[in-house]
């Protein structure tokens, strides 16, 4: 087995006196689909925000290792855009598309960190810029085809259906050419048919060489898709392992049952 592409050790995040994340370890190996589950408020999204640089972790270590170049980077304290450049992209739980930009442009934004044209290039449109622009459009269109939105290229993103918006977020993240994709509740609000299509899409993306870390509440999706599962509760990691292992873990059952009883 090759080296982990993401290795998180002892990650802790405090808000005031509250430990939203408490000493969590996690690792992802190339080609894996890993799920992060846990009851509401367990700290999953906070965990994502720490990974992607939106929050600065209070303690711990986040290391990213590019499987192709073997380049290792410590992500703590890095700006979100730098982290994306390093090859880790994400989607958001509460969809954050660019609402009045077109579907195609949303994906084109994802190409930003992989392209170079600047002020002078934009003004003079020299051959290099033009070529780059064509490549951006081409590649973005290919991604739209992959996620099935190529018929809506010029539609404003806010006019898309909920499921389509979620897919567009994935497409936009893919455009940044990540080797690790973080999906925050990608199936939330989808109907069963859309969920099915999403599962196919995630499998396809994974088969194309992107590793995936996802947060999800849809247990059926998680169990059928994931290679390994990490479980969090009250900011702590309470279990990890294959779907079978996790399913039979008493701590996990207690966390979920406890939640159900409470509700």
């Amino acid at each position, binding site marked *: 087995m090759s080296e982990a592409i993401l290795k998180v050790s002892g990650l802790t995040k405090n808000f005031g006196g509250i430990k939203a994340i408490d000493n969590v370890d996690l690792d992802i190996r190339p080609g894996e689909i890993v799920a992060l589950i846990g009851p509401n408020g367990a700290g999953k999204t906070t965990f994502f925000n720490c990974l*992607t*640089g*939106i929050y600065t972790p209070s303690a711990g270590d986040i290391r990213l290792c590019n499987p192709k170049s073997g380049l290792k980077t410590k992500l703590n304290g890095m*700006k*979100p*855009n730098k982290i*994306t*450049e390093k090859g880790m*992209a*994400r989607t*958001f739980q509460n969809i*954050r*598309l*660019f*609402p*009045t*930009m*077109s579907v*195609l*442009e949303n994906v*084109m*934004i*994802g*190409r*930003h*960190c*992989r*392209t170079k*044209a*600047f*002020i002078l*290039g*934009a*003004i003079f*449109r020299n051959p290099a*810029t033009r070529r*780059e*622009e*064509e490549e*951006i*459009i*081409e590649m973005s*269109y*290919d991604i739209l*085809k992959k996620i099935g939105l*190529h018929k809506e*290229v*010029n539609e404003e993103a806010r006019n898309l259906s909920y499921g389509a918006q979620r897919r567009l977020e994935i497409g*936009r*993240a893919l455009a*940044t050419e990540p080797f690790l994709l973080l999906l925050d509740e990608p199936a939330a609000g989808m109907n069963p048919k859309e969920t099915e299509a999403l599962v196919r899409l995630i499998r396809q993306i994974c088969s194309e060489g992107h590793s995936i870390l996802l947060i999800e509440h849809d247990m059926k999706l998680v169990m059928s898709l994931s290679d390994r599962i990490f479980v969090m509760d009250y900011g702590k990691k309470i279990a990890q392992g294959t779907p079978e292992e996790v399913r039979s873990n008493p701590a996990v059952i207690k966390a979920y049952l406890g939640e159900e009883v409470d509700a």
Partner: protein
Amino acid sequence: MFPLKELKRSALIALWFAFLTFPIMVIKVDPIERTVEWRWDNMFFIALGSFVISILSKVYLIRKERRAGRKKGNRSITEPFMQRILREPRFLYPLSLAVLVFALSFPYLFSTYQTNIMTTALMYVVLGLGLNIVVGVAGLLDLGYVAFYAVGAYSYALLNMHFNMGFWAVLPIGGLFAAFLGILLGFPVLRLRGDYLAIVTLGFGEIIRLILENWNDFSQGPSGIANIARPGFFGMDMSFAGGITYIYYLVVGLVIVTIFVVNRLQNSRLGRAWLALREDEIACQAMGIDKTKTKLVAFSLGAFWAGLVGVIFAAKTTFVNPASFTFLESAIILSIVVLGGMGSIVGVIFGALILILMPEYLRALSEYRMLAFGGILVVMMVFRPEGLISNVRRSYQFKKQSSGQASDRS
């Protein structure tokens, strides 16, 4: 028929305004002579005026509702007239050509005075387009834009006075100075959000003006710098009217260049990043866009145009003093952008022409013109909050089968 209920409502509104304006409109006191003048006729006019306006606006609303009811469902087909013209090249090109021909023949059709006014208006077009990059496209609320304008103007005034530098040499320098200052200021403040940024830029604009006012050794203080050279044309000596026409063409040229550049910028990698930044900063960063750098570029590019126009302003007026660079000036340029339609080039052009030419032609209203100006600003915003002409995003055409064959039109 007009319902009675609405008449009653309008009557109540009239009463309310009669009450509201009572102390200011009706009573006029002379505290020295200790006399009071009761101007009851004013109350009558106010009541009558608000009654009529309230009825008219109600009629407008009712008709609008009816129209909206009829049109429900096919909104996308009845695209606004202007939008269609802008989207269709077969309309846009001939129209642009006609505008260009008109602009070029303007000095021959109208008097020197009219040309001079038009030059001023066109300068504001460029200022508006520059600020549009900052506010309209990148969404950074800048209330101190006039500072960069002042930097450009004083660059030329000072370099001309001390080193006898010519207009053409200073034109790029003034722009670059302003852009540099934009970076310098932007660095600490651009991480502020929304309205905090607004007040800091406002303060910065005031600081620049106050420095110009107080630092006599540097800027000659409030009495300003006079006798600034007009722009030359290969050393040619020009008559007075010739000079005005010349500056006019110069500004027309600058407008064309600005439109070209701003248009290209908007439809580039950078322009997309600005738009994305305006819509969602966090998502933007997560997509790998360097927030600070992108904002700084927008800020300093906007400043660059202000600097250029500042140089032209100094050359045109041949005199600069700090009084020309007050907050009101920033507010007017901002109004141009918002009124025209944020992010829309054509909108900004319209906005500038309307806002700058309006007070000139409102001169007939003499002392009422600023009142009208303020009122019109409010009314326009209430009726068209998204501006006169909203931005037309570029659309892309793809041939059905092959993915790569992308052709686009702007």
